[in-house]
């Protein structure tokens, strides 16, 4: 086909305004995988993909992009390729919400989290209670009783002292509610423009008084998957509070300390407790993917059983996002032995934070490492990690 024919005909590769070049990165990507034989069946291709996904991740970008902070695949790749690579040790490699460590006879949990939410104040909470609850929850899902927190502040020149007082007061209230004390801290001020008002980092330590060891890898076929209430409230609230969209919805953040809720689940589940997670950035879908990957089980979720408030659903639809990926700040995901499902559900529903708890699915054994969704429409699809879409700062 000549170039001219191409134009009238519709398709060709051979015309342009002269200059043409190649995309180095793309050629390189193809070359890395060159020599792969041409597979004939879909099954073989799927297996090859799963093998490719298990390989050690590589960061291809030259610089950090916003996608690296979105909580999806790009974030995971960055963490594994840079931090786990540099700090490698058995505790870190578990990549749980917090670290479970032993000091002499003391079984401790230790965690840290940074908060850059914008706006700082939003319906249902602010960066202060978010920072305290976030760390309390990370300790709680390690099976620990949260004890002491640290608080680090990075403040931008010009930030109103009144706002800082408001943040501090809210942290104090949240700490009292969670039964923890903020025992140490740090303050830095940077020049105007080098931060956005106020960033907060908290770290926390707690004691693991129960004998259970929870881990994402412990989920087994047959286990039940539970969430403690309607999902996505926090993320949608913050996105709407930014005021960039002309959408109004009656939603408030779900930020709350879940130490009591988690303790209730663990007491009810006994040795049937496998995994507890705090569904923050990346939402429930991201947690389920981590559990599926670590346990090599198949997590099967029933879309009709997933609790989502109507307002959240509506706003998410308008924003073109799936509530399964939207952050919560006061929701547990629990995986428990099926014989304990009822006891756990009773315990959850007995607590105000767990009134909307629901069994949303179960662990199967095939396809290993994937999360499947039975859609309300009657079909089946995968729920994968997000590639890293540019969502606004929500935590």
């Amino acid at each position, binding site marked *: 086909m000549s170039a001219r024919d191409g134009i009238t005909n519709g398709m060709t590769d051979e015309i342009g305004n002269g200059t043409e070049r190649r*995309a180095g990165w793309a050629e390189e990507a193809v070359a*890395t995988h060159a020599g792969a034989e041409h597979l004939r069946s879909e099954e073989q291709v799927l297996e090859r993909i799963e093998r*490719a996904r298990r390989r050690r991740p590589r960061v291809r970008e030259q*610089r950090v992009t916003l996608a690296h902070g979105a909580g999806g695949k790009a974030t995971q790749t960055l963490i594994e390729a840079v931090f786990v690579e540099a700090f490698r040790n058995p505790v870190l490699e578990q990549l749980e919400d917090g670290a479970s460590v032993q000091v002499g006879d003391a079984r401790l949990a230790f965690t840290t989290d940074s908060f850059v939410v914008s706006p700082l104040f939003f319906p249902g909470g602010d960066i202060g209670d978010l920072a305290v609850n976030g760390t309390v929850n990370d300790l709680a899902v390690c099976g620990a009783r949260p004890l002491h927190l640290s608080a680090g502040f990075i403040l931008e020149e010009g930030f109103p002292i009144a706002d800082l007082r408001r943040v501090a007061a809210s942290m104090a209230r949240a700490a009292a509610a969670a039964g923890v004390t903020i025992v140490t801290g740090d303050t830095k001020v940077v020049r105007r423009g080098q931060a956005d008002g106020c960033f907060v980092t908290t770290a926390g330590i707690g004691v693991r008084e129960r004998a259970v060891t929870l881990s994402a890898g412990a989920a087994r076929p047959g286990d039940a998957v539970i969430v403690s209430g309607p999902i996505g409230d926090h993320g949608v609230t913050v996105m709407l509070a930014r005021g960039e969209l002309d959408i109004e919805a009656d939603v408030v953040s779900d930020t709350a300390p879940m130490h009591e809720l988690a303790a209730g689940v663990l007491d009810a589940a006994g040795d049937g407790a496998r995994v507890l997670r705090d569904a923050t950035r990346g939402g429930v879908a991201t947690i389920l993917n981590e559990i599926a990957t670590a346990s090599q089980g198949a997590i*099967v979720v029933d879309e009709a059983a997933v609790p989502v408030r109507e307002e959240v659903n509506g706003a998410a639809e308008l924003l073109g996002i799936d509530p399964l990926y939207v952050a919560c700040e006061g929701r547990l995901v629990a995986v428990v032995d099926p014989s304990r499902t009822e006891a756990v559900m009773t315990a959850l529903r007995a607590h105000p934070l767990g009134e909307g708890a629901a069994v949303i699915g179960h662990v199967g054994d095939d396809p290993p490492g994937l999360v499947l969704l039975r859609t309300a429409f*009657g079909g089946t699809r995968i729920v*994968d990690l997000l590639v890293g879409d*540019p969502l606004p700062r929500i935590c």
Partner: protein
Amino acid sequence: MKFVDEFRDADTARALAARIAELCVPGRRYAFMEVCGGHTHTIYKHGLEDHLPESIRLVHGPGCPVCVLPMGRVDDAIAIAGEPDVIMTAFGDMMRVPGGDGSFFDAKAAGADIRMVYSPLDALKIARAHPDKRVVFMAIGFETTAPSTAMTVLRAAREGLENFSVFCNHVTIIPAIKAILDSPDLRLDGFLGPGHVSTVIGCRPYEFIAARHGKPLVTAGFEPLDILQSVYQLMRQLHDGRCEVENQYSRVVPWAGNRRALEVIGEVMELRPYFEWRGLGFISQSAMQVREAYARFDAERVFAVPGVRVADPKACQCGEVLKGVLEPWECKVFGTACTPETPIGTCMVSSEGACAAYYNFGRFSRSRVRAGSAGPTPLADPVVLR
């Protein structure tokens, strides 16, 4: 999730699916192309293929504006963003689209001022707020988004804004469909017409598809039941021996389109002689550029644009996938070199692309899942939320 939504009801779907199955002639295979990426997304997101008989295959077409943007145009936009005092504005889904040297995300990380906006009017707002900057809007999309780009240019002209321009990459759907119809290896039995585009252009422009190419077309809405209903209408036509353009989405799509929107496009934009589509190559009269009269709002005239073409790697088989000759998984680099994180071909770029939709939503063996242990979920009582 509580989908009281009448367009997503599983029982209605099953009933419709049964009627579709009845229309299948034993031994015959059917292939329908959904032209629009929004349909591709719906099909995968709801697992719609589970309702279709094995003999019906949906082929995913070229209607994803982000996917068909050639790498060279992304490079051009990044070059503009690198000019002094430029603020580049774009929709969020533009950010990850790869160019020859990376995406908007990469350019932003390297220091370019690139901002996400929800509409071209937001870009105009930024231009008003920063008179010392030159604000460029990265305009992409089919006839669906072209009217709002055109309106924004008219508004900027009325306000006499000097520091605003658009980098126009608007494409038109009909020449792309024509190109697919002219392809010698076409194996389609009919089309699901794009819903959003049709709200602007109406259904009349599709008549040649039925009349001259003998393929029925049903303009379809975006809910899963809309699509299933449209497949039913296509099957019905084949069964009755008819070949027509039908409008399933008449609750939104007027048969004659939206005259006012077309006028606005025509006022500001004109057809280019040809434009490159990623995966399909150059297609004549398939895209729009800003008219001479609005030259000062045309980034291609305001800035020096390199205009260098970036070739797709030879291993890419996007053209074949777009035409339905290959299934996504049949491409040699699918899922290895080409993944949603590092899309090297067009169909992997946004979740509306065929390869990305298949990778993200459909990457499992349906037959094995049906047979295996992933069986029904033991459920507690359903939760009732206010």
